[in-house]
């Protein structure tokens, strides 16, 4: 392994060993709380595109990697930062090594970093840009460059180019505006709906003519206020009084903004599988990679009611429209722990489409 650094835009550096492909990449450095598991899902999740993920758990890669855990066929993150990368995993999953997998996918990581120190720094100073570079690199130059660095987190790159119909033999069909959803999402939806996967720039009439009875706007990477997403919001607005709509993660922010709400960037965001949200009186753990949040003051004017908040910091996690069947959740109801805690929200949406109410 070769030595290298994680360089942050404020000039702080962390020394470590590089693994994965021979490359240097920049991204937005966020830390992710949670357990030992789920690393493969996280790095292949298109929502995490452009991020450098810091795993707070110090041992990563313990059970190797296996195809079944992929959220997409690429490693989406710009890089990962770990304390210790496992090179001798549990023998039960017959998987390849995480390091080899990353090399094969052209992805990079750095190990040997005091991830707790880094986490506490981000908590204090907020998320910032960073770059994983090789030993001997001119750090000052990297820092300078980082200031103007454009993070590679465009929805365009992770959204499908064409409309794809997936008929799983269900009664109802929904259209998904796919801003970068992962496999787990489609797997969960497929159990309830036939799915029409649409690009982020799909037009409202294409959906209205498709036979879909409802619309789900998916999760995805980056900033919801990015220029490329205005078109998505136009489509949502056009559909808002015609079909039931549910927004998930980035999708919920797009739905809310389409209705007139505002978002703001969070200092550190919510990244991990243990974000507590109260849903109808019951506390549920949710899987989030949330970097932006809705501005509470902007909700009422947009006709939106807050239905769920985060129990740690009161950030809005769920809303519905006061009249129309429009809903949004800042997490993926099926993601990680959500399988047990929140996946029922899709059932609720199914009932809405069937004519019930949520």
């Amino acid at each position, binding site marked *: 392994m070769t030595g290298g650094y994680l360089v942050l835009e404020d000039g702080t550096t962390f020394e470590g060993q590089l693994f994965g492909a021979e490359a240097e990449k920049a991204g937005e450095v966020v*830390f992710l*709380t*949670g*357990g*030992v*598991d*789920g690393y493969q*899902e996280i790095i292949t999740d298109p929502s995490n595109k452009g991020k450098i993920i810091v795993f*707070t*758990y*110090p*041992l990563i890669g*313990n*059970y190797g990697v*296996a195809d*079944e*855990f992929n959220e997409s066929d690429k490693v989406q993150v710009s890089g990962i930062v770990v*304390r*210790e990368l*496992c090179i*001798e*995993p*549990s*023998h*039960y*999953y017959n998987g390849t090594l995480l390091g080899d997998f990353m090399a094969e996918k052209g992805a990079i990581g750095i190990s040997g970093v*005091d*991830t*707790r*120190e880094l*986490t*506490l720094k981000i*908590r204090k100073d907020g998320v910032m840009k960073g770059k994983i570079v090789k030993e001997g690199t001119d750090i000052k130059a990297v820092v300078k460059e980082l200031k103007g660095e454009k993070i590679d987190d465009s929805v365009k790159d992770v959204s499908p180019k064409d409309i794809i119909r997936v008929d799983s033999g269900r009664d109802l069909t929904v259209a998904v505006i796919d801003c970068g959803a992962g496999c787990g999402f489609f797997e969960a939806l497929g159990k309830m709906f036939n799915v029409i996967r649409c690009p982020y720039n799909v037009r409202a009439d294409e959906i209205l003519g498709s036979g879909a009875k409802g619309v789900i706007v998916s999760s995805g990477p980056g900033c919801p206020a990015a220029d490329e997403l205005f078109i998505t919001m136009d489509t949502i607005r056009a559909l808002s009084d015609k079909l039931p709509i549910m927004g998930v993660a980035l999708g919920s922010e797009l739905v809310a903004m389409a209705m007139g709400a505002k978002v703001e960037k969070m200092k*550190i965001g919510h990244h*991990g*599988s*243990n974000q*507590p949200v*109260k849903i109808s*009186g*019951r*506390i*549920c*753990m949710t899987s989030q990679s949330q970097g932006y949040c809705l501005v509470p003051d902007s909700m009422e004017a947009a006709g939106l009611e807050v239905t769920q908040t985060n*129990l*740690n*910091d009161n950030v809005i996690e769920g809303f519905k429209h006061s009249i129309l069947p429009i809903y949004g959740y800042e997490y993926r109801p099926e993601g*990680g*722990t959500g*399988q*047990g805690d929140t996946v029922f929200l899709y059932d609720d949406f199914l009932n809405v489409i069937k004519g019930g109410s949520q």
Partner: protein
Amino acid sequence: MKKDYKKVLVIGSGPIVIGQAAEFDFSGTQACRSLREEGYKTVLVNSNPATIQTDTETADAVYIEPLNAETVAKIIEKEGVDGVVSGMGGQTGLNICSELAENGTLERLHCELIGTQPDAIAKSEDRELFKEAMMKIGEPIPMSESVNTIDEAIAAANKIGRYPVLVRPAFTLGGTGGGIAYDEAELREITAHGLAYSRIHQVLIEESVLGWKEIEFEVMRDSNDSCIIICNMENIDPMGIHTGESIVCAPILTLSEKDVDKLRNSAIKVMRELNIEGGCNVQFAFNPKNGDYRLIEVNPRVSRSSALASKATGYPIARVSMKIGLGYTLDEIPNKVTGTTMSAFEPSVDYVVLKIARWPFDKFRTVDRHLGTQMKSTGETMAIGRTFEECLLKGLRSLEIGVNGLDRFDVLDKDIEDLLRNATDQRIFVMGEALRRGWTPEKIAELTNWDVFFIRKLQNIIKMEYRIKAGLTPEILKEAKLMGFSDETIGELSGKASLDIREQRKKQGLVPVFKMVDTCAGEFEAKTPYFYSTYGCRETEAHQVKDRKKVVIVGGGPIRIGQGIEFDYCCVHGVMALQEEGVDAVIVNNNPETVSTDFDMSDRLYFEPLTLGDVLNVIEAEDADGVICQYGGQTSVNLAVDLEKALQGTKTKVLGTTPDDMDVAEDRRRFSKLMDELKIKQPASGTGYSFEEAKQIAEDIGYPVIVRPSYVLGGRAMEIVYSTDDLKTYVESAVKVSRNHPILIDKYLTDAIEIDVDCVSDGEDVYVGGILEHVEYAGCHSGDATMVMPPKMIGQDTIDEILEITKKVALALHIKGLMNLQLAVKGKDIYMIEANPRASRTVPFISKATGIQMAKIATKIMLGKKLKDFGLTGYKQLDHYAVKEVVFPFLKLPGVDSILTPEMKSTGEVMGIDEDFYAACYKAQVAAGCNYPVEAGGVYITVNDNDKEKILPSAKALADMGFTIYATKGTAKFLIDKGIAVATLYKVSEGMIPNAMSAMREGKIQMIINTPTQKSGAIRDGASMRRLAVELQIPIITTIQGAEMTVGAIKVARQGKTGVRSITEYHRLVN
């Protein structure tokens, strides 16, 4: 929303036994604090005086009374309790609550259960109901059937269709009486055993999931049906080894997200179906080969696992459970660790936690060391690290079993395979040795059913050993420290002294940093002052406090026989006293069960091994003003001299009695010299450097003598020998005697009464807290002796002389703090056995009996206060009685002789307290679980010739009460001559029936009075009878005094009028 209760009762778990240790002192104490901060009037009952929860400060009224439904009902009635907490007293507390609910007491007294309700308890504890519930929600459990007879058991096994099958008794603690049956014959035997132990005479015959992974979830649920996982844990040892015995890591290290979520969702589903509110432990067997799982067990209460999970994550499970019981929901309970968030979250950790069990096999050399579904360990240690290797090595050296890490282990090549396949406490060391000898991790994984992931971590450690041996470069030193190697091990491998390694690495800038346990992996700012050390980082989170004095208290480590919860009690009192004096109290300890390691008990808590190096690291990080070594039992005492040496020239002082004075007390020569100067008698003694020398000394002194090796502390390998032949056997089998390892020989004082004295001194005055008289004769380890306070057998002159001796010794040793003396009274003579210049096992007992908290006073004296500041001096005799009774682990450790010897064997103690002496005896015996016959039954009496006359009053009293007296010829003839009706039995050695053992098996004998002949061989001969008595749970009394107390206790029981009183009421009797 808070419920209304006038008064709430918390039930403790009683004496420390295998399977139920200090964790319930921790949970009960947290529960009481939680109740009182909500403003509830609180009552606590526990029979164990060595607990923090029985401090008068814990509750509005504290009862030290036997833990049974009858006594608890009396307390409920007397106090007007209307809410009883069901889940804080382990299985003991839960069973009492079940009984009170079943027999209608709760309803009669208008009392509710707080926390898990009777129907939920029944659903999780009753195998059939549990199975029904799981089938209803479609959760898989091992195929099984509850049976009440052996024939039913065999039918059930046939239905399952393959052996082995598991036998699990219902309603027992720590898996008592269970086992794995590999064929029908074994099934018969184990089932018979299990049925006998089950409270409802029921066992479960179960499909085997041996070798699967064992996974645990600690779940919390509130009345809104919110369920959260506090912690998940992976047993590194597979199914088939009791979770109390397994090495356990938190969080799960080797399962994918999909698999973890599968089990998580199942655990939550189960909680909801069983309708459990509060903390709960769910255990799974998981087959990693195909993803199958089975639900194994649900514990609807806080448990040893929940104590571990609390310490592992920082989430106070008992506290939150208590609040949920009171009606709060998770989002209404603040997270005390962060201070800013609520308890409605799943903790995330950013370190590795390992729990390793501590077994008593060093004490019990004859016991079967194999691990299985029966728990045998007495305690555990927890380690925290940033790598698995670091964590493991810390955990191993925390065990205090004479290793500094994964040390070399003496094993023959041919034995390795068997030792890997059939686990013992030593398996991890055998694994290390196998790796050193070139075994592949895969092969070891196959034999042990460990995940190869973990074995490769062991291999990393072994590889590092070789690298260190090959030459210690700065780079290798750094890597070794990152891997958690101790300075001691590195020194050993590189041929240097550990303190030199310490210097070398400090010069290299290799010092540990301390990271925080904060429940949230750094996501939120936390205020917890709870730390662990790690290397290879630049940022430490334990910042030195500048404007306050700081004192480090060295804790007691894992609970073991000889060093139990009483030392944790002393440490906690040390903390409280420091805080009362405005000094920051810092705890270093590694026992996850205890109150001392609760995150908000001390000002700062360091979870660390208790070796010189590890403790010095903490002292340096703290820049401490002082360190206290008197409270953590032998663990901390052993560090005193080395710490003082290492701290020379720094600001940190070893507080209290100086290590040099401590050494005078510990060193036989120096101590003997002092006793001569003070004109205090000691039993004749000598030191033998060869068998011949030892023989000569023994003959000069005169047999019997007590022998022990000079280099082992705490009564280990100590024996009474009666003849030269005995001595020869001892030297040949138990210890090697040599120039470097002499044996110590003391005159054994036959028939002497042993006395324990505990005092506090400030160097000028002495306050004697209590004088305890042993019921057993000198020679029985004081930790095992039944004790009576105040003394009954010795006269006032003797007491006065004892006080005089105590004062002389305390002043001569310049004691600043606590001192314990062990004395023997023979006729008019008083002999000094030993002086212990530290907290003793009896300090909490005496403090509870008198209401004077000696450990707190001693701490303040160490800080410079004087006894007269507290108005204490001399000695105040009690006018009520406190009797200490002990509990033994014989039932769980087949192969151990139940005879009491100089080697300590008991795991825990109880106190019986009453104005009436015999009522105190009765309470103590009931609390210790002795099943003395009350109404009728048979008593087998066999006493030595000296005792025949003395047993007469007790024998007569028993006969008058209608008991049938059995005896063998000699005793029988004597008693018949005195006019007592006796049924004569043959001696077992005569080979004729009826003899004592046949009568025992037939159920004719309910109690045995056996005073052994004090000579060679006689004691050993009774072993098979004693074993049988243990199995059949027939109490044995071995002294005349004990017989007399028991007879008195039986009379009290017959009157059925014993009352209950809070200890404050007793303390009022003192003042």
